[in-house]
């Protein structure tokens, strides 16, 4: 379902060093027609201390457990997860 002018909520999950900086999860009001790239920029503005990681191409975005590209269009209801580079086991 598309965002309706900010009525939706995008939930964002963090892992690794991002989780240290920003906690497990946060929520932001959805914006109509927002892409993953735009969401990153918005989050970086809200959390300038973590902007380097939020904007890093090494930090991948996932929706519904699948990697998504920077131009992925958010519907405004989903949970977006940002995964820093893996450490491995």
């Amino acid at each position, binding site marked *: 379902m598309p965002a309706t002018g900010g009525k939706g909520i995008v939930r964002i999950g963090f*892992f*690794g060093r991002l989780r240290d900086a920003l906690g497990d999860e946060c929520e932001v009001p959805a914006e109509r027609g927002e892409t993953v790239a735009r969401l990153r920029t918005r989050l970086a503005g809200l959390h300038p201390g973590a902007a380097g990681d939020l904007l890093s191409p090494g930090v991948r975005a*996932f929706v519904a*457990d699948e990697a998504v590209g920077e131009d992925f269009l958010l519907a405004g209801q989903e949970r977006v997860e940002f*995964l*820093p580079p*893996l*450490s*491995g*086991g």
Partner: protein
Amino acid sequence: MSVRLADEPIAAERELAELTAGLTGEGAVVSFLGVARARSPEGEEVERLLLEHHPRLTMRSLEEIAASASERFGLSSLRIVHRRGAVAPGETIVFAAAAAVHRRAAFDAVDYMMDRLKTDAVFWKREDMREGSNWVEPSEEDREARARWSEAPCPE
């Protein structure tokens, strides 16, 4: 094929015994233990290692590595047990074992599983020192080890 995440210390002897109890005539079993080091690569004393995981993608990655090893080396049985959460220096982080008809497949399978686990398993590791913490990324050596198993496309 048995793959699981463990919150508590891994009893390697029991894991190996359970694997061997299920054998049906194989001639080779190889097992490996990865143990948490007491010092960081920079030589600092590590008080604990934190293994952060993803609620679904971590198991998916372990299962994919196990399935790939099983198919690639024709294993009859394998086991991966991986810790998550806080791990103390000296504790086992990972137990990986493989059973095969002949030894070479079993050795290679465990080598392959560990190289894949070190780079492709969905974990984030943080070394906690007395003062400060450090998020770990795979070393160049880990990446080179992983690349040994890459399958180049066949020329047409």
